[in-house]
């Protein structure tokens, strides 16, 4: 799938910042509540496809069409390191829990683990088990979860020293851990989201109704793991009840494709990206501070 622009990313700690990136080769740091642009980070040669922040909000990483993974300093806006080695576009980047390693998944079907501490230009390790491009990577304290276009979800367990490969079949667009760390949510190009048990790989739930045939769309779980949220190509955001699997809400966002979304880490607050704009959604009781354009 291809990604148009501006996938938002929430600061995982407090949700006070939001990071967007896009085809203008820059990263932008926003205050999502006020809609103010805090900083622009430019240095990429091509469109920026994904960005993530460290646990302490001190550094950012991003990857894009220029095959490079860039480590940024948040405060100064300078490029700290530029990791080159991928043979193709970098689809997804993630910090590990302590922001000592950047994991980047690329269209060249590898995940590369870049060491932020040393000055080594080569990756610490290259996970090249996938047979097709990596679309999504998530990292927990001791696991690396990777979804690939070859239709498999691979979970590298560093503690056990094992690789679990779950076959889903359809090209995988997005994966994420549940917040309790017990499940993995997998969205694939057959317009289906699946909730898999992390340890056994069994199917816990299936969520359909949205449309995802073409684009690399995001999915996530709500702040308390009560709902499954996914983008859709028909301009809506779909909410399912996690346990029952029933469609809870189809939130119309706009006319185009909802490309990306992120849930606030602690509050019921959702960011969606469509076209060139980011929208911030909250519950009705919340006094609105406006949805920035």
């Amino acid at each position, binding site marked *: 799938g291809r990604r148009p622009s501006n996938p938002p990313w929430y600061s995982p700690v407090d949700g006070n910042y939001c990071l967007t990136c896009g085809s203008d080769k820059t990263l932008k740091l926003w205050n999502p509540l006020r809609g103010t642009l805090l900083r622009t980070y430019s240095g990429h040669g091509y469109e920026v496809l994904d960005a993530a922040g460290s646990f302490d909000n001190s550094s950012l990483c991003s990857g894009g069409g220029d095959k490079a993974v860039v480590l940024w300093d948040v405060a100064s806006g300078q490029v700290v390191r530029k990791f080159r080695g991928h043979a193709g576009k970098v689809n997804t980047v993630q910090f590990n829990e*302590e922001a000592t390693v950047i994991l980047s998944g690329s269209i060249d079907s590898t995940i590369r683990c870049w060491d932020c501490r040393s000055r080594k230009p080569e990756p610490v*390790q290259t996970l090249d088990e996938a*047979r097709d491009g990596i679309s999504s990577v998530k990292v927990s304290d001791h696991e690396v979860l990777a979804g690939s276009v070859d239709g498999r979800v691979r979970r590298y367990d560093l*503690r056990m020293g094992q690789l*679990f490969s*779950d076959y889903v079949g359809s090209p995988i667009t997005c994966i994420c851990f549940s917040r309790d760390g017990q499940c993995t949510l997998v969205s694939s190009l057959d317009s289906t989201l699946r909730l898999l048990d992390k340890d*056994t*790989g*069994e*199917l816990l739930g299936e969520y359909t109704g949205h449309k995802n045939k073409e684009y690399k769309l995001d999915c996530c779980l709500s702040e308390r793991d009560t709902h499954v949220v996914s983008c859709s190509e028909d301009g809506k955001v779909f909410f399912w009840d996690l346990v029952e699997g029933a469609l809870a809400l189809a939130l119309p966002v706009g006319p185009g494709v909802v490309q990306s979304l992120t849930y606030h880490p602690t509050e019921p607050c959702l960011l969606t990206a469509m076209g060139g704009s980011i929208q911030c959604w909250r519950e009705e009781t919340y006094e609105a501070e406006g949805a920035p354009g």
Partner: protein
Amino acid sequence: MGLAWSRWKKMRKLRHREVKMTRIAELVKGERPKKPIPLQDQTVRDEKGRYKRFHGAFSGGFSAGYFNTVGSKEGWTPSSFVSSRQNRADKSVLGPEDFMDEEDLSEFGIAPKSIVTTDDFASKTKDRIREKARQLAAATAPIPGATLLDDLITPAKLSVGFELLRKMGWKEGQGIGPRVKRRPRRQKPDPGVKIYGCALPPGGSEGSEDEDDDYLPENVTFAPKDVTPVDFTPKDNVHGLAYKGLDPHQALFGTSGEHFNLFSGGPEETGDLLGDIGVNKGRKLGISGQAFGVGALEEEDDDIYATETLSKYDTVLKDEEPGDGLYGWTAPRQYKSQKESEKDLCYVGKILDGFSLASKPLSSKKIYPPPELPRDYRPVHYFRPVVAATSENSHLLQVLSESAGKPTNDPGTRSRHQLNACKRGELLGETPIQGAPTSVLEFLSQKDKERLKEVKQATDLKAAQLRARSLAQSASGSRPQPLSPDVGHCSWHMALSGGMASTRTSNFKPFAKDPEKQKRYEEFLANMKRGQKDALERCLDPGMTEWERGRERDEFARAALLYASSHSTLSSRFTHAQEEDDSEQVEVPRDQENDVSDKQSAVKMKMFGKLTRDTFEWHPDKLLCKRFNVPDPYPDSTLVGLPRVKRDKYSVFSFLTIPETASSPVTQASSEKVAQHRASDKSRKPSRWDTSKEEKKEDSISEFLSLARSKVGPAKPEPSPLVNKEEARATESVSNKVVNKDVDSQTEGEGSRPSMDLFKAIFASSSDEKSSSSEDEQGDSEDDQEGTREADFKSSQETDLVEASSVAQASEPAPQEPAPFFPIQKMQIDEREAFGPRLPPVFCPNARQKLEAPLKEKHKKNKEKHKTKKEHRRKKEKKKKHRKHKHKGKQKNKKSEKSSSSESTDSSDSQSEEGPTDLSPQELLRRLKRLPLRRQ
């Protein structure tokens, strides 16, 4: 009209000015014009010296127009049209300058354009000293005359000192101090300096008018002479003391024939320079000299072609230094100046209160003479010759070391120069370089080494004897030639035996072009090895001429030496390629994700979990574990990623299957031979041939497994003993697959194979008509095997035995004979253990678990069921084809995989899915029942 008028005005103005100018010029010249210049001689030029023509005011006036005018037909220069987009912004704003004449724009015109020092900043003091210093600086500056900045920027105000002095009655140009009676003599100008052209006003402070007056009244006092400040410029170059280099002044404007003195004298000469500089600078600064020729405006052209001769330069360091014999170094001027300075020390002026003159001069520092050199000292270092320690020259070495004052080396403490890199490394406790044997000697067995040692000792003894003899001979003088052949022979023999006596001729063939010669060379080496000193003579061809022999002797000796010396050193420099190009094995992951078709069906049935999951051993990098704060799960392993094993490279033959029918009586006989052959030569590298053999066996397994599958119940194989956890897992996954699969998978195995026609086209074996008609799998594979053998026949030349058998086999149609197959199988299994699994990737985990015992049983059963299976297959044939298409359609949906890997997975799948199963027959039956349902 207005235009014409202004033009006329302009013309008038011009004319007036020009006329005025000529007048003034004449006045300046000082000649009073006797006659008014006739009109025709009154010329007008513009500032560039070009003539200007006048026309009558009423006959066209000033000839504005095309020719000598403002530049255009209209008589003015139109502002040029600029149409580029960039320049659109800057509009041409006309200032007053645009309407003014050029003359008015000059330096002192109405609107001066160049930067001129204003009165505020103009220096009020005509400070000659400063000027002089400036000139000096200008002369010594890298670019002569580059003191423009100093010229421009001068202090606006005089310093306080100046002000004070002035108030005390000091005038510029005077010296400071009490006034003196007699005015000091003027310094005579240096006679050596020629004065050219306009010289600067003389440097003295006095007015030039009074110079001639000798009359001096008694009561007149004079101000003391001004003192030029000493130039204390710090030495910031790397020249020697007082070395100035070539004065750019001299080089550029230097007078011809003068001697260039690189070492100018002490301070007094600097004073000279100060005095002279103005005079030398008489000429205008600028680039001149031989290379530039003489300009038309230059007056002097006397020495255009003066040649630069070396005689102008010092070729010898000055030796007219008075007295001291220190050649080539500029003596400190102390000696000379000390006496004077003592005089000078007497201070003439008033001594301040509280101070008194020193009664004794400061004691000068004592100067110690440099240490005296020994008489026989030679300032050249002499290197002692390095002599390698051999038995021959040990005496010499000893002598040398004694002469050097060193004690004789005992072997324990060798000097570091005699150690080579390896030994130094050993001393330092480094681990020796692995992999690359540094010497061929390491290839030898212990026994051989001992033998070599003995031989060496023997030769040493002999050599010593020989040497003694030859020495005696040469001493007696009976044989005047310097080196007898014996001695020569001996020397290289020594070298050989010392360095490396055992040359392995197999990989070094210097005379490969000439087999006979090579043979002789090898013989020579062999003799050498045995320690025969006449090895060379013996191996030479007696039929050759003396000269040829001599040459060959030289060649052999040199070749042997060359090999001995270079091989060991070179081999330590290079390491083996990680993956040899011609090796038949590659590294592939041990476990691979199996084919997805069964998983697809599982996904369709939403049976996630065991069916869709593959689990592998995976080794994270140590550093990654560290960064993740996770203990390394495999602390002992150096592996990273998935475990890998060596497999055969993918080739066509890897994917061919050979049925057990291929083993004919002939093969059996031959294979037994092969087995013996192998037993005798275990270390031999396995050839392609082995691969095909293994495939044969592999196929027998698959055959058996398919049989087992077709007949579910009784054919349940025994669960093989599990080697370790991973393999258990692998089996599990395999069994999963088998559960999930059915006859369908069999077709897939076939589908991955290239079509029959391809093989036929390649190997063109025609004798199989039954197989071609029925497309029986057996026929196929037999055919394939033939192909394999033929190809092998061409490729491998070593296994003659095997080949012979294979050819025989190919010529005869092979009746089925299962019994004799087993020895081969056993042997192969052994070999597999020795060399590791060598089959296409996915097969391996299964293959490893297989032991001989179950195989045998399976095999027998296999034979029995064979016929029934055949029929069964034929029935299925149609179905298969049908499903093949279906399968392809499915495959399209999948994302493209690497061709090789997909191929391998597919082909291997056909084998691995048939692996030993531990499922219950009930389970299998259940699957079978379900299958037709799915198909609908």
